[in-house]
C-alpha cells in the first residue's frame, strides 16, 4: 500500500492505516517535537496532539505539496501554540548582535542527546526561534509572521539563543576537560 492509498484510507478513518502512517512518521516527528519542546514528556504530549490533529484534519490535505511537510507544519504549530504564550523577550541591543557566536567544533558535545538537552534548556521563545531559523531554515521574516514578533526580535532572540548555547557548550567543555585532567 503506497502513501496515497494510506492517506485516502486515513481520511476515511481507517484505524489500521492511521497506525501505519503513525509508524511511518513517528520517529521523524518525534525528533521534531524533541527539538521544539522542553523535555521528552512534553515532546510526547506534543506528538500525540499533533497526530490527533493530523488525523482529524486529514481531509484538509488536498495532495498538494509534501505530505511530510504538511505534517511537520502541524507538529511545529502545535509546539508553537504550546509555548508562544510564554513571556515575550525584548530585543537586545545591536551591541549584543556583534558578539561572536562561532565555536570550536571540537568543543561541541559529541553526544546528540547532550546537544538536544542544550536546545531544550533554552527559554521557549529562544528555542522556537532557534529551531525555526537554524534547524528548519525559515527566514526571520517568516519567523516574525509565525510567532507574531518583529523581525528585530526574531534576530535578537536567535542571537541570544546562540550565545546561551555557546556559553553552555564552553562550560561543558571546561568541566569535561577538568574531569579528564583530574582522572589523569
Amino acid at each position, binding site marked *: 500500500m503506497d502513501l496515497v492509498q494510506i492517506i485516502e484510507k486515513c481520511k476515511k*478513518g481507517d*484505524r489500521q492505516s*492511521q*497506525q501505519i502512517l*503513525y*509508524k511511518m512518521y*513517528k*520517529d*521523524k516527528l*518525534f*525528533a521534531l*517535537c*524533541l*527539538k521544539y519542546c522542553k523535555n521528552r514528556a512534553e515532546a*510526547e504530549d506534543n*506528538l*500525540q496532539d499533533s497526530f*490527533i490533529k493530523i*488525523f*482529524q*484534519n486529514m481531509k484538509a490535505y488536498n*495532495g498538494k*505539496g*509534501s505530505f*511530510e*511537510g504538511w505534517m511537520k*507544519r502541524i507538529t*511545529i*504549530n502545535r509546539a*508553537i*501554540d504550546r509555548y508562544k504564550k510564554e513571556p515575550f523577550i525584548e530585543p537586545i541591543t545591536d551591541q549584543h548582535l556583534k558578539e561572536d*557566536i*562561532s*565555536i*570550536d*567544533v*571540537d*568543543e*561541541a558535545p559529541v553526544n*546528540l542527546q547532550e*546537544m*538536544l538537552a542544550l536546545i531544550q534548556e533554552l527559554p521557549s521563545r529562544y528555542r522556537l526561534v*532557534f529551531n525555526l*531559523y*537554524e*534547524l*528548519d*531554515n*525559515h*527566514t526571520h521574516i*517568516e519567523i516574525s*509572521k*509565525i*510567532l*507574531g514578533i518583529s523581525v528585530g526580535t526574531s534576530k535578537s532572540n*536567535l542571537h541570544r539563543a*546562540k550565545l546561551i*548555547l*555557546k556559553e553552555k*557548550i564552553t562550560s561543558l567543555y571546561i568541566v569535561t576537560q577538568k574531569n579528564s585532567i583530574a582522572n589523569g
Partner: protein
Amino acid sequence: MGNRKDIGKLFNERFKDFEQAPDANLWNNIASELDQESDRKIAPFWFYFGGLVLVGMLAGLWFWQPWNTTSELPSLQEQQTIVNNDTLENNTSKEGTTTDALENTNTQETLSSNNTTGTKTTITTQSSITNNEDHNTTNNTTLINNSSNTSDSSLNVQNSDQTQPTIATNNSSSKTQSTSNSYTNNTSLSNTTSQTSSQVYTNQKTASILEVLRTMESATQKARKQKELEARETYQTKIKNELAQAITLQKEESKIASQKWFDSIANLEAIKKAELAVKTVETAKEEKLPKLPKTKEEREKDRKESVDYKLAISPYTSILSYGSLTKGSSIDDRLVNNPRDAIGTIGYGIRADYKLSERSSVRFGIGLAPLQYRTSDFQVLITGDNNINIFQLSGINPQNLGQGQGGGIETSPQALSFFNMNDVVSIEQDISYIEVPIDYQYRLLNKRVSVSFNTGLSLFVLTNNEVFATAESGQSIFIGRETSLKDLSLAFNLGLGTHYNFSKKWRFDIEPAFKYQLNPYSDNIGNFKPYYFGLQFGMSYKF
C-alpha cells in the same frame, strides 16, 4: 584549536537526520483518544437523551421520595401503640411505647380521674377494638372526641387497664344499657355504682342481671380480647415484615437510583467535556493557525514532485511553415527568381515521453504534417497546339491532361479553359507526411517551469503530393505531382521546449521545432533544401 563554526550551522549539521522513537504506548493513547472522538461524534443525541431520562427519573424519585417510608415507620408504630392503649395493652408492642402514647395514656387516666369526681349524669365509655390501621385512626379520633365531650360535660372515660369490662349507664333515664362493644373500667364502674347505688339498691333484679352480664361479658370479652390480640399480633407481624421488606426494597432502589444518578452526573460531565473538546477543536479549526511558509527543503520536494514522472503522453497540435534553406525551387530551376512563400498549416500528433534521468528523456511519437508551399507570378503561355508551359515544368508530373486527337497527350479542355482565363497563376504544392520522430530531450531547467533542448530524427512517410495552379481569383486547378519526392525520408530535428508543470499529473508544453529534411528528393532539381518549422502546443499527462 580545531576549526570554528557558527553554532547554528553546527546544530543544523548534527540534527540533519535526527530521528528518535517515542514511547511505545503512545499509539494506544492516540488510538483511544481518536476512539473517544469518534464515539462522541457517533451518537451525541443518545447521550443527551439518556442523560435527560436519568435526570427526569431522579427528579421524579426526589419528588416522590419513596425512601422516606423508613421515617414513616415509627409513626405507624406510634399509632399501633395508641391502639394498644385503647385496647388496654400498654406493652404488647415490641417496638415499645412511645412518649406520645404514654402521654395519651396519662391524659386518659386524668380524664378518668376527673370523671370520678365530676360526673353527674352520663358516663359513656367508648372503646373500639380495631383490626387494622384505619380503625386505629378512627380510635384516635374517638379519643379526641371524647375529650371534647368532656368539656361539654359529657364525660367519656377510657380505661388503660385491660380485661376490664365497661358499662355505660344512662342516669337520666335510670336505664342501663349494655352493648357488646361498650365497656367501662372498674373505677368507672365503682364510681358509677356509687352514684347510682340507690337505684341499684332499689332494683335488685337489675343488679343481679348486671352481675350476670358482667361475668358473662367478662368471660366473652376475655376470649374476644385474646383473639383480637392474637389477630392483631399476627397483623402487626405481617405489617412489620411487609414494612421491613418494603424498606429493604426501597433501600435497594434508593441505592440503585443514587448510583444511576451519580452515573448520570458523571455521564453529563463526560458529555459536557466532550462538547467542550469538540468546540475547542472547532474553535481551533476556525482560528487560523499561523501558516508556516514552506521551507527550502519542502520547496525542493514540491519541485521534485511536480517534475517527477516516468512516462508522459502528450497530444499536440502545431502550426507549420514549409520552406527551403536555399534559394532553389523543387519544381523547376527556372523558377528560382519567382517569389515563393510558405502557407501556414496545422499539424497534429501524439508523443510519448519516457524519462531516462532527472533531466533527460527519450521521446517517440507519430504525427501528421501537412505542408504547403507557393511559387507566385508564374506566367502562363499557351502555344498554338494548346500546349501550356506549366505542364512542361521539370519537377511536375503533369496531370489533368486529355487524350489528343493524334494519339498524343494534350491539355484537357477544363485546364485549357482555366489557363485561357488566367495567364498569371501561383503554383501551390500540397505535401503531407506522416512523421515518426525519435528525440532525446535534455531539460536545461528542471523546475515547475522547465526548459528543454530536444534533438533527434524523424521518419517522414509521404501521404499526399499534389500541385495546383491557383489564380488570383482564388480558383485553382490540379496540374500534377512533384516528380522526385520520395515516399520515405528522414529529417533532423531541433527544438527548444518550454513546459509548465502546473500539477503533479499535468504539464503544458510549448515547443518551437525545426525539422530539416535530409533526403526528401530522389533528384534535386532546383537545389531545394526543404525544412519546416513548427510551433507545437501540447498537454502532457504524466504517469
